[in-house]
């Protein structure tokens, strides 16, 4: 119901239940505040927002006082001003006046308001409080003496990040914000605390002391790390990105971004950043710098020669799903121009049978409202941190995965199992939905009953898509889709999975997909913005690259391919180029370059344009970015949102009437199975090279082989012991172990460096002497 009130003499209308703060904001009246934050619960503790309300003997906090009909509010009367000035004085008495050396200077809410509400001389003549700084990890710096105890950071942790990593301890003047015991702040959204802190108590550690806000230019950008499509603001000093903060978009990321989005920019000047083209002569072991012209010519010549010698179908083109739509369009155009259909961007997949799903199948907004979300093989906090935030706010969800029970679903809504058991369980859920219960596994039965007849979206995470069982899972999901209209989607498509699919960066009839290319005895590979760590079968890729005659890499960093590439062409990273990303919803977002690529590096689209031209292909004689899009934009290119379900290739399915199937969810094998949960800071070339992210707890864990504590005990091993893993296909790897009780039994969560197989992995504790040398 709408009510009417008076604010500063003007009539305003507001919905009942709104606060004075909200009503005033809607009426264009700004009320000073610190603790209030539109996305957090109300604390009403800073008292900066005190206003005068007729008939109330005391000033009232606008942020916490609900409007009532006929209320008369004055935010600027002498009484209100007096109250606000009084609070400001209190806030400043113990605040160090160290603005000249404070990183928040210039964007500090306290500084701003002090100018408006403070007095120039302090009446406070006593000693000031000093609070020791806290060690919160590699991302956040603290200067706790500056803290004004607004508890925004505490509420952010509890309400948004999902973990209460900071709390207000102590009382009165001794009240301090601190982590629990000596913990660091480890949530995947922790960097947002820097933004919510109104003062310089929590600041960005990597950005510290590097620039003043007024020196920075603000450029819009889009996240290049996951399929959410978070909107960013890149703050640049000249040609350099100095920091990244969220750009508000209510429909997507609200006012948050993941730490990955915030701190990956640090990789832009990683040691192996490509700044010059490099070539390796057949006789040499090293890449050495080469002029652009020579490098480009050599590429065209070699590709032509190899096509002539072996046929163009002996070349493979592999591109990152985080490349821009324009880049992917040009890359596939080159591939097809030289007569090659072997092109793919689905690097983290093993089994391509069973059809294709692209995108979420629904929008983020729909995800928020959907009756049920069924997550299969997803680890939201690592794959899509903002999905994890969305899930925390909606209790109706069911998750099936091998890792991270707590974060995927509330108790009773989560089934923890090894990947080879998933299809059995999912089938059981389906049957329970059809028959209304009666399944052996209680969770599955309950889940099935819940899903039946409900608006459900099935979302596959990386753990499912990378697994050899993905085709089976897809088949059951399709049956669910037929049974109760569930939509299907994948979460792990990369920043531009949508663009990659739409521009045809995947094989058509006769072409090879990623798995086939790795096994197809190809003679040459062209890698665009990717390296072996980006592949599900990275050992296999390394072998294939080693056996090929020619490897050309185009990318921002050379590191992962230094040993095998014959040619390296330095390209711009996402922040340095214009481009378009199509996120999991199917939403296209075009961005401009925020920074300049370093050295001789060039935008990917420019490099590809010249390569196409050098190869003598048609359609490469354009000169501006704007000329690319019309080449691929069709009628409905930009409004293809949420067509994932429609894109599912219809395949005959026989699972419907297999009611009598005996299911005990036994794993398909006895050895360990790979969990395929991509480590959050091993997601792509940039995150892998961000020093700050690598120093976080999650960053450090990525290098470890994680297993269920019981499995580790069975090996006679404990945390820190080195384990040797081997598979039946001759692959092997060694890694230090870490017990992780959030894993299913029988599962190995690791960077699967040297392994070819995904199942039947055997593990053995290594001898001490070997461990010492390892």
């Amino acid at each position, binding site marked *: 119901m709408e009510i009417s009130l008076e604010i500063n003499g003007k009539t305003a209308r507001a919905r009942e239940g709104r606060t004075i703060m909200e009503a005033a904001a809607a009426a264009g009246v700004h009320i000073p505040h610190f603790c209030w934050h539109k996305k957090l619960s109300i*604390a009403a503790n800073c008292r900066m927002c005190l206003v005068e309300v007729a008939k109330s003997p005391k000033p009232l906090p606008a942020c916490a006082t609900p409007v009532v009909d006929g209320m008369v509010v004055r935010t600027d009367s002498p009484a209100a001003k007096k109250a606000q000035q009084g609070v400001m004085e209190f806030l400043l008495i*113990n605040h160090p006046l160290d603005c000249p050396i404070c990183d928040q200077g210039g964007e500090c809410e306290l500084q701003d308001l002090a100018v408006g509400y403070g007095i120039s001389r302090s009446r406070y*003549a006593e000693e000031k409080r000093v609070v020791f700084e806290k060690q919160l990890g590699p991302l956040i710096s603290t200067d706790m003496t500056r803290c*004004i*105890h607004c508890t925004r950071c505490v509420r952010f942790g509890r309400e948004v990040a999902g973990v209460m990593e900071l709390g*207000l*301890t102590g*009382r*009165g003047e001794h009240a301090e914000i601190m982590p629990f015991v000596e913990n660091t702040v480890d949530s995947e959204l922790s960097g947002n605390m820097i933004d919510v802190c109104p003062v310089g108590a929590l600041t960005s550690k990597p950005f510290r002391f590097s620039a003043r806000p007024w020196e920075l230019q603000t450029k819009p950008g889009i996240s290049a790390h996951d399929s959410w499509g978070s909107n960013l603001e890149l703050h640049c000093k000249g040609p350099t990105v100095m920091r990244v903060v969220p750009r508000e978009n209510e429909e997507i990321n609200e006012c948050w971004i993941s730490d990955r989005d915030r701190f990956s920019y640090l990789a832009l000047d990683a040691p192996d950043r490509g700044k010059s083209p490099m070539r390796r002569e057949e006789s040499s072991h090293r890449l050495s710098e080469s002029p652009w012209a020579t490098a480009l010519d050599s590429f065209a010549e070699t590709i032509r020669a190899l096509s002539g010698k072996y046929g163009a179908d002996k070349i493979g083109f592999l591109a990152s799903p985080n490349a821009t739509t324009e880049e992917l369009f040009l890359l596939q155009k080159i591939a097809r121009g030289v007569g090659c259909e072997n092109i793919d961007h689905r690097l983290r997949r093993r089994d391509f049978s069973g059809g294709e799903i692209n995108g979420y199948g629904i929008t983020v907004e729909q995800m928020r409202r959907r009756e049920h979300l069924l997550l299969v093989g997803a680890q939201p906090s690592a794959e899509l941190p903002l999905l994890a935030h969305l899930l925390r706010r909606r209790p109706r969800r069911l998750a099936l995965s091998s890792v991270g029970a707590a974060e995927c679903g509330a108790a009773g809504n989560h089934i923890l199992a090894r990947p080879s058991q998933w299809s059995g369980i999912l089938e059981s859920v389906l049957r329970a939905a059809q028959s209304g219960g009666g399944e052996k596994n209680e969770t599955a039965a309950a889940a099935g009953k819940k899903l039946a007849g409900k608006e459900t979206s099935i979302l596959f995470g990386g753990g499912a898509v990378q697994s050899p069982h993905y085709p089976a899972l897809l088949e059951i999901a399709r049956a669910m889709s037929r049974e109760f209209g569930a939509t299907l989607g994948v979460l792990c498509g990369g920043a531009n999975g949508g663009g990659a699919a739409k521009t045809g960066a995947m094989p058509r009839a006769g072409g090879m997909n990623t798995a086939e290319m790795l096994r197809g005895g190809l003679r040459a590979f062209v890698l665009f913005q990717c390296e072996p760590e980006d592949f599900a079968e990275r050992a296999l890729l390394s072998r294939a690259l080693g056996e090929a005659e020619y490897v050309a890499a185009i990318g921002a960093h050379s590191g992962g391919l230094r040993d095998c590439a014959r040619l390296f062409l330095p390209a711009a990273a996402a922040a340095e180029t214009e481009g378009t990303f199509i996120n999991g919803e199917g939403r296209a977002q075009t961005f401009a370059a925020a920074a300049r690529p370093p050295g001789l590096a060039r935008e990917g689209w420019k490099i590809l344009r010249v390569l196409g031209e050098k190869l003598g292909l048609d359609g490469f004689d354009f000169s501006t970015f704007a000329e690319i899009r019309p080449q691929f934009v069709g009628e409905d290119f930009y409004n293809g949102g949420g067509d994932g379900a429609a894109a599912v290739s219809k395949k005959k399915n026989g699972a419907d009437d297999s009611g009598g199937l005996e299911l005990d969810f036994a794993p398909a094998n006895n050895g360990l199975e790979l969990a395929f949960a991509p480590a959050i800071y091993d997601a792509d070339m940039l995150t892998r090279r961000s020093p700050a992210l690598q120093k976080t707890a999650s960053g450090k864990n990525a290098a470890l082989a994680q297993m269920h504590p019981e499995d580790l005990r069975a090996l006679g091993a404990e945390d820190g012991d080195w384990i040797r893993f081997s598979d039946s296909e001759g692959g092997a790897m060694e890694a230090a172990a870490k017990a992780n009780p959030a894993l299913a039994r029988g599962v190995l969560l690791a960077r699967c460096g040297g392994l070819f197989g995904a199942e039947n992995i055997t593990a053995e504790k290594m001898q001490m002497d070997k461990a010492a040398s390892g």
Partner: protein
Amino acid sequence: MTRDGYGLEYRAGENDKSETKAKTGAMADEVIFAPLKSGRDLTVLENYRQTGGYSALEKILREQTPPGELLAAVKESGLRGRGGAGFPTGLKWTFIPRGLPTEVYLVCNSDEGEPGTFKDRDIMRKNPHQLIEGMIIAAYIMGANAGYNYIHGEIWEVYELMERAVADAEAAGYLGEDILGSGFSFRLHNHHGYGAYICGEETALLESLEGKKGQPRFKPPFPASYGLYGKPTTINNAETFACVPFIMREGAEAFAEMGKPNNGGSKIFSVSGHVEKPGNYEVPLGTPFAELLQMAGGMRNGAKLKAVIPGGSSVPVLPAEVIMQTDMDYDSLAKAGSMLGAGSVIVMDESVCMVRALMRLSYFYYEESCGQCTPCREGTGWLHKIVRRIEKGEGREEDLDLLVSVSNRIDGRTICALGAAAATPVRSFIKHFRGEFEHHIRKGECPLDKKAA
């Protein structure tokens, strides 16, 4: 809680009631301490029964008296909250929504931490079952099936005693499922606090009960709509509940008539400080202070009265000449410029340095502020530091005005009333004893030290 409070409390416990009675009028000890006149140990349930205890409850449950009728009696009795604010209890109990399919909780505030207050522990120590009976009746009135008694953290033996009393009441069928076959169930849990003054503030108490840091909540919503675990909750002081069996047994009128209009019933005053017999005295509201002082044995060693804080450290101090003319009830004390508060009468003789006394009080609030809201967190420290400076002889001419100004900037702008409680003593001490403060500032020393020397 201050250590001084302790010493007093134990002395109060040893206080011999029969002797007190001999010295004073017949009206003392009528409500809560009345059964004590039997001379029996009332912590024994059977003894309490024999003095008429639990008979009110039994009658109500037997006759299934409609709760509305009982509520009317509480209203009629004029009972006002004994925890400090003096809010009419009957009115408060009408705020609990009825007929909702949700839990309703009843909470007893036995956290008394206010300097000068030591009555609730004596109620629990001497007559625990009257409190329990009062809570059961209140629960019956409001339809609560679970209740909590939050006991101050530094009186462990009282907590143990209450645990025994609750167990005995359960064994006797007064607590638990289907009480006395009436179909009404009520479980009572004692909860042991940890001694933070702020946990006596009702919403901080609820937070603490929920296992969180004891910090007041912003109100509204009030506990009656959003209380313990988010459910409608009634919270009252222990003395408030302990009055209820009397009202039910003897009638609302008897209770009301005992005091003055709008100030019904008797009140336990915790008298401490420079009197001969510090202790708890239950007298009708409206008893003149002079009479109360006499009950407490008069001034210690015949010293001269200087000032009295009549309701606990949070209420304004009154100089001797004012308090000697004042009756001890809500309205009279308000008229005299102070408050009844929790009925904690701190008596100070001429040897007390008011600057020192204020320093001690301001230290208390500085240490006990929960630190949540700006004016109180920052202001209590500021106040204390200035007063401490004055006491050390380093005061400045402008300090007194600054103290008043800072106090005004705290008062009324905080989440809970602790801010106001910290500001009040500062303003009243300066108002009534400005000269003494000025002497400290100008001369850099205490006039009383000189006298003593």
